[in-house]
């Protein structure tokens, strides 16, 4: 009888833990492109809605996503919204050239070895993840499509309203 209870508790705990892990977006600690003084981690932004975007200078759809992300940051920043972009270029010098043509008003973090990209199980470039105020991963987008921009914006508004 007690063994059965133990097993039941264990299974419940296991599933709860799994669910918690699946829902909670993995934390990271990366260098900021503009200032390499201290590391930036996801936990720093608890309480905010985070749009986590993985990009690289060689990714063509990223050129279309940058102006849109600038717009979103400007529009919803005051309401507690933060765009955090993670760059995956192996060669840091490519970033400067890209930013000249496609400037970014949002945070850029560096992940040249792709460790965080691995953690987030990226299946395509670019990839974006919407994380709610509690730090849970709510939406995953692979690729950036112009026709989906209104939908992406709706999702941000919905999470801000929570």
């Amino acid at each position, binding site marked *: 009888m007690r063994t059965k209870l133990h097993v039941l508790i264990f299974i419940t705990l296991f599933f709860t833990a799994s669910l918690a892990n699946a829902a909670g977006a993995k934390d990271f600690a990366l260098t900021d492109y503009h200032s390499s003084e201290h590391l930036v981690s996801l936990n720093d932004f608890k309480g905010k809605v985070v749009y986590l975007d993985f990009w690289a200078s060689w990714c*063509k759809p990223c*050129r*279309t996503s940058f*102006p849109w992300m600038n717009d979103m940051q400007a529009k919803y920043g005051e309401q507690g919204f933060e765009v955090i972009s993670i760059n995956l270029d192996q060669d840091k010098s490519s970033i400067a050239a890209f930013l000249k043509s496609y400037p970014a008003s949002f945070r850029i973090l560096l992940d040249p070895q792709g460790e965080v990209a691995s953690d987030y199980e990226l*299946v*395509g470039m670019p990839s974006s993840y919407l994380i709610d105020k509690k730090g849970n991963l709510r939406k995953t987008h692979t690729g950036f*499509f*112009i*026709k989906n921009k209104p939908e992406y914006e709706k999702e941000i508004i919905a999470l801000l309203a929570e």
Partner: protein
Amino acid sequence: MQLSKSKKIGALLATATCTLLNAGAQAQETKSENDWKFDTAILYYGETDRVSLLEGVISATKDFGDQHILNTKLVIDSLTGASATGAVAQPYAQTFSRPSGNGQYTTSPNELPLDDTFRDTRLALSANWTQPIYKDTRVNVGGNVSREYDYLSVGANVSAERDFYNKNTTALFGLSYQFDSIDPVGGRPIPLSTMVVNNGQFGAGDAGEEAFEAAFEQTRIDGSDDKSTVDALFGLTQVINRRMIVQLNYSYSNSSGYLNDPYKLLSLVNENGETQSIVHENRPDSRAKHSVYAQTKYAFDNAVADVSYRFATDDWDIQSHTIDSRLRYNLTETDYIQPHVRYYQQSEADFYRPFLNEGEALPSVASADYRLGEMTAITVGLKYGHKMNNGHEWGVRAEYYQQDPKNAGFESIGVLATQDLYPSVKAFILQFNYNF
């Protein structure tokens, strides 16, 4: 004649260009990504003492967003010069009738008979549309039309490609259909008919001329004929690692209809290799081809190597091997050179005959066109490219192309032993391209 053709082509070109530019005018976005991108080139191809070609290409591409891409291409080319007809050289002068029947040309002793009536301008237009239709799946549809004096070609193609394994693998299937209509100068020659040459046997003056024309007409079929070609392509592309990608394609092609070259001839020679008459060629009315193509591209730190091999075989018994390699070497951020080497080898068609023997029965299909014979060819070239500050690019390419037809085992009897029946064809290629 030539001038009026040019005027027509000019008008066509202007209309086509206007259409191209107007299509882009509506959707002007501020982002340079979605502007029209143009790749233009002008190419000169010149064989020593033979054919010269001048060709211009304008290719325009526009991304309408989310990988909806339109490409249109305009090609104009102008061919001049003399081509080998397939008739053999002789130690005597030879006279041939022009394909139109209007006039004749003479070949000097010990010279390869070349027909220099080829002055043709071709205009070709093509358009292709690509878009995603499902996750990881894209379709492409296209059409093309091409026009020259004696030739009209229209075609359509459709293909679908799908990515697997995080886009490391891509599979492609494509189908195309091409319809060609040929209306040769002077009508189509009756296959294997004897060429009528006016050596004075028809008498003098207008009556003689008329008699010749009547006899000439007897060997011609009026009107056009056509051919249809269906192609199927299966392709597999695989990313090997961060630096390397490979591709493997299998394609099948089936043509049927009028596959002859109406301007090609065969010499009918006697036991001593002396030409007794000239006969028009005849090819089978169908051709089924298979080809396997493998390509690798490898990215070095400052260079990209591209090596490919193609094996082709068909039911005309032509088998060929092609090895093509390019190495793009970046000299600086903005300049590169690209050496190019290509080797080609083919075996002769089973109906290929360098000449026909008077004593033997006339075969039902025969051609002396060296392009269906045994040969090897080599191309060696170098390209230099430069990217300008405004993002435009220009390049210049120079190549040398030499074809070496070979004797596929036919005995050069009598006087033919004194002639060069398989002369090499040497050509220079010069291309200038500008992308913006």
